[in-house]
């Protein structure tokens, strides 16, 4: 198992690393039991993600996918950020070892959870087709067992 140069670059020099005190939306997914937790902070102006920060507890691919996901959604419209897939994140990183794909799913979910938080705070109803029934807290989530 070896990581791509891109993964190692984002792991060594994570982009948008940090916390945000005045975030418009915060999403945290995963749990410490299964080994990866991601927390994403969004600043949203006029429907556009003007700033994003992340904190991650996890392996190198968890850190690299968090970093890449924040890069991909920064400056995007909120609706477009919702379309972010883990596949797109993995491709942007020039791939992940097969055993590590599960770590990248969290990045997609963390972005969704942060946007869900933003919508909820602003009285916007969550479309179950996009957000499903996931509350963001993964304690009972299947893939974390």
């Amino acid at each position, binding site marked *: 198992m070896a990581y791509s140069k891109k993964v190692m670059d984002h792991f060594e020099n994570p982009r948008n690393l940090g916390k945000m005190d005045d975030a418009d939306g915060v999403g945290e997914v995963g749990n*410490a039991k*299964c080994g990866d937790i991601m*927390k994403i902070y969004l600043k949203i102006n006029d429907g556009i993600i003007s700033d994003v920060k992340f904190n991650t507890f996890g392996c190198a691919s968890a850190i690299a996918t968090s970093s890449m996901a924040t890069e991909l959604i920064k400056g995007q419209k909120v609706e477009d950020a919702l379309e972010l897939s883990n596949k797109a994140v993995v491709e942007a990183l020039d791939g992940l070892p097969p055993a590590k794909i599960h770590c990248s799913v969290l990045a997609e979910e963390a972005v969704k959870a942060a946007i869900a938080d933003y919508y909820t705070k602003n009285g916007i109803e969550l479309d179950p087709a996009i957000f499903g029934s996931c509350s963001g807290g993964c304690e009972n989530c299947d893939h974390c067992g």
Partner: protein
Amino acid sequence: MKTVYVDNAATTAMCDEAVKAMVECMSSAYGNASSLHHIGQEAAEVLFAARQDVADCLNADVNEIYFTSGGTEADNWAIRNAARLGSRKNKNHIISTAFEHHAVLHTLKKLEKEGFEVTYLEVSEDGYVTPEQVRNAIKDETCLVTIMYANNEIGTIQPVKEIGQVCRDKGVLFHTDAVQAVGHVKIDVAEQNIDMLSLSGHKFHGPKGVGALYCKKGISLMGIMQGGAQEKNKRPGTENIPALAGMAAALKKACAELDKNSAYISSLRDKIIDGILPTVPRARLNGGRDARLPGNVSFCFEGIEGESLLLYLDLKGICGSSGSACTSGSLDPSHVLLALGLPHEIAHGSLRISLSEFNTEEEADYIIEELPKVVNRLRDMSPVWERIMKEESENGLQ
């Protein structure tokens, strides 16, 4: 960048003596030890001498040593053999522990599928099992006790002699996976009541892909393959003489210098432990400090994950290892740390530093300097650490 190799429990660099012995075999003693001509007989002599050296290091007889492809094969062979002897007498119960190496655990799991019953003794929170636990678990149907000599992740050394005595008293075969112990602690199979023992060349500065099974005289040992007459018909196939010679040379040296090395390596070990524990909050040492391999340091750091810790250390030239889930491809962290009763959250943040006599004081200092920085860097970006600190300050305010 300098390289600090502290993953000696995974494998070791070869010592000069082992390299020299191997090169000599490859360039001059290249014969087949079964050939009658003088080139073949030269190889046969090397083979005999290697077996004698290994036997001497264990205080075994030369006829009790069977060469294998490594620790895994020796473990499989010993356990399968005992199971076969047991089932002949309708004895289908085996006793082991929850924190064995997979070479043992997975063999036992397979035997369970084939109808054997296995008792996995609980390990204490500091990483030991007791002879009393073994005594209490032995039943009329017990055909084997297999307990590792020293654990590969946390370095704890089990009371092998006393466990062996219990097994002798009860007439049960005793096997020990001594892969991590041989060449590092004094072993005497006769004095320690050991019936079967596994060892592996690459854990004491010998080559990889070679090991040995010690099987006490009088215990019937089944062959594992059909073929020629090598290894007393038990393990056919032309012997890998260079590997055997390399392993024997390394073991001979390790045993001759054991006291000196053990004192030196354990001083490095204690320096690192005492250099890290007081300076890094919420760090713990896994495994007791007393009966511990000279080279093993095993930490858990709360709030961070082991793989990223390992890789950030690698960027500083430090090569260690972690029992974290993400390095194994499953969501569960190391079964060894879980067997100690550690919660998943903490077991994920493990780091094993395993030293050898090739490591220096300067390297230990470098680890003591760099490791806390890396831990802090990861904690700064960890939502888990953020939560731990929040809880701590809330509790502090109460």
